[in-house]
């Protein structure tokens, strides 16, 4: 692994539900000041809160560079609508959109829709993979240069560059093409939280960014290698995958010395809520730099326990220190989330297929 492999950092801006835009805008701007790759906003149909993708659309014009990644569940929502909304977030943010693919497993969620019973996670994640697949196809269903505005022939589009996707999944079919033209990034960034065994397969096949859970760097390195191997088995380039360790952080106590008896490096602990870091921002910087230097991960996704307090300490403490040590960027060299992540703009699968659909 080359030593210059860039470090990637992302932060959740959810936390306790809020019903106005101001706090979300403030947190996203704070993360942007730290030049973080992206912010995420968690979502679920069964807890009070606003629609996450809508909130990030509201945040988009109030920010310039930071990636905006909303949780979108695929179990009860129409795949066509999912694809359109995520593509539109990319349009309104000028190429900064992503989505965390998620599923709705509980009977309580199913009863909000009344259409189908709760299904086992395995089936729902298989379906989520199909939704990710059809979304990507719909994003490709317009070639980049489909809009021609050819006044000599009166044609607005070249219909040979618009394609039916004719997708048949286990639970749905979509004819296509998309209504929304191909978004600025080609494909908005797809993120999968691979905490569960069923989501790991969907991650290996479809994700650009994978969130993993590990309390030790060796463990993270093993998961990362497994994911890269599984991605390769699906014909993907392993280097097109960014593996970020998920970490809930509590920086409320300020700096504390390492507890006696423990190794001097900062540690994470596992728990019901996943890996958890409690300590100071400087030690967190040590932890992040250490795991990254050793090649265990491509970066971290931190979930501040108290967003207003902890994100401020992450940005002004941890990130500032990493920047000072030249471990993390001090400005955004590019404009799109893919550029922040060092991911190429995907080629269009239909562009050289030839013939109209």
């Amino acid at each position, binding site marked *: 692994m080359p030593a210059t492999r860039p470090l990637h950092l992302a932060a959740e801006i959810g936390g306790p539900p809020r019903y106005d*835009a101001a706090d979300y805008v403030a947190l996203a701007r704070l993360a942007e000041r730290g030049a973080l790759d992206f912010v995420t906003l968690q979502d679920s149909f069964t807890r009070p809160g606003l629609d996450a993708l809508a909130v990030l659309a509201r945040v*988009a014009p109030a920010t310039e560079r930071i990636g905006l990644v909303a949780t979108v569940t695929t179990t009860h*929502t129409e795949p066509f609508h999912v694809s359109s909304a995520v593509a539109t977030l990319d*349009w309104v943010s000028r190429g900064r959109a992503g989505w965390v693919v998620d599923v709705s497993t509980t009977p309580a969620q199913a009863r*909000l829709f009344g259409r189908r019973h709760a299904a086992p996670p395995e089936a729902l994640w298989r379906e989520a993979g199909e939704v990710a697949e059809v979304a990507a196809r719909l994003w490709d269903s317009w070639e980049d240069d489909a809009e021609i505005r050819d006044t000599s022939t*009166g*044609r607005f589009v070249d219909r040979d560059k618009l394609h039916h996707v004719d997708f048949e999944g286990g639970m749905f079919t*979509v004819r296509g093409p998309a209504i929304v033209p191909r978004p600025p990034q080609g494909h908005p960034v797809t993120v999968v939280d691979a905490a569960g065994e069923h989501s790991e397969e969907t991650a290996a096949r479809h994700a650009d960014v994978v969130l993993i859970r590990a309390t030790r760097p060796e463990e993270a390195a093993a998961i990362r290698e497994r994911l890269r191997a599984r991605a390769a088995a699906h014909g993907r380039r392993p280097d097109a995958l960014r593996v970020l360790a998920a970490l809930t952080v509590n920086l409320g106590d300020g700096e504390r010395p390492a507890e006696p008896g423990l190794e001097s490096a900062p540690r994470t602990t596992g728990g019901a809520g996943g890996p958890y870091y409690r300590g100071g921002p400087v030690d967190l910087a040590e932890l992040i730099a250490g795991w990254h230097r050793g090649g265990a991960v491509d970066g971290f996704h931190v979930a501040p326990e108290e967003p207003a307090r902890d994100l401020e300490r992450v940005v002004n403490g941890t990130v500032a220190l990493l920047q000072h040590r030249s471990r993390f960027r001090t400005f955004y060299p590019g404009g799109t989330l893919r550029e922040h992540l060092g991911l190429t703009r995907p080629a269009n699968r239909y562009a050289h297929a030839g013939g109209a659909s």
Partner: protein
Amino acid sequence: MTTGAPGPTAPAGRRTVHLAAHFPGVNSTTVWADPRAESQIAFSSFERLARTAERGLFDFFFLAEGLRLREHKGRIHDLDVVGRPESLTVLNALAAVTDRLGLAATVNATFNEPFELARRLATLDRLSEGRAAWNVVTSSDAFTGENFRRGGYLDRADRYTRAAEFVATARELWDSWTPATPASPYGVPRPFAHTGRHFEIEGEFTVPRSPQGHPVVIQAGDSEEGREFAAATADVVFSRHSTLEAGRAFYADTKARLARHGRRPADLKIMPGATYVLGDTDAEAQEHAAEIRRQQVSPQNALLALERVWGRDLSAYDPEGPLPDIDPDPAAVIAQGRVTDGDPLAVAARWRALSEAKGLSIRGTVIETTARQTFVGSPRTVAEALDTFVQREAADGFILIPHLTPGGLDDFVDRVVPLLQERGVFRTEYAGTTLRSHLGLPDPVRKG
């Protein structure tokens, strides 16, 4: 009955004009070949038009919806603007760059589910602090259904029963939070349970009420069911009557229906879609209008319009020549994803009569029948005409459809709005912050 929000008032008993702006993206009236036409998809276009509408103190900004690209003779239609972003996401972004303008999204009640859509609409209403509106449309179209899990399963009769139950269910969800108190400024969610013909759902809603209570409900559609649905349920009707007499008839009929549903005439605003062309003089505006009609109906578009009525391949005909002698094939389906024009034999007979009476070519006939602008003239002429429609109860206001993206509203805001203000029939500043307050609509009564 209800507590009325303070609405704008016009002096000396004159009725107030309401104005909204339609974003001229996908429709056959947009002149994309004009050198001033810009992107119909970039956010900058939406931002510019919305800011112009807000500068003009408009009530709201209106987005249409597409769920399947139109096709003609089995191929994607390529002669008009194609492609648009998803409305609610665009409107949430516009909420960041506007302060007062209402934000209206057309969203289909057939290919969505009440809990999810009610949540998305309530989110827009919260994030815009009470400026959201929902234009409820329905579909029974299997062609569109091919993009959705449900497919084309609804027959025509069920479209409105589902839509009515959909809106009622959404309102149950919007009402399910307790009123705000000092201890819980947003209220708290209470469990809901809805059992009806189309939906059986239960749980807790996730979004508290916005400052305007509920999003404003808009309804488009002119059928008997549509009028009844509007009278029972809608806050605004997006109507299509562009002449004074047709407008007055629709207005009287629709307003008369309200009492049967326990509503007052002022509870429903009737706002026809309207196009306009301005010039320094009436003569100049008429010249512009003729030019724009020719741009809207290219020779290729004229033949396609003819084929839509005739249901036949007529590509061998000269668009500048006479109408075909053969009759339409009423059973043929040649165009998909469009609103149909009615009985093809009757339409063809009307077109033939017009063509013969005026000596019009195919293209000339299509221009005459499909591309008429509603208001053409100098700013003074147009302002007078708009005012007359409102004072004579043909409308409460208009949803203006400019033909240029995104600069098509500039002239109207700069030149017509001041004249309406001079006449005392249009606001000079926003009186309130919510869309309901702009429209002078009562706050919704909380049920349950």
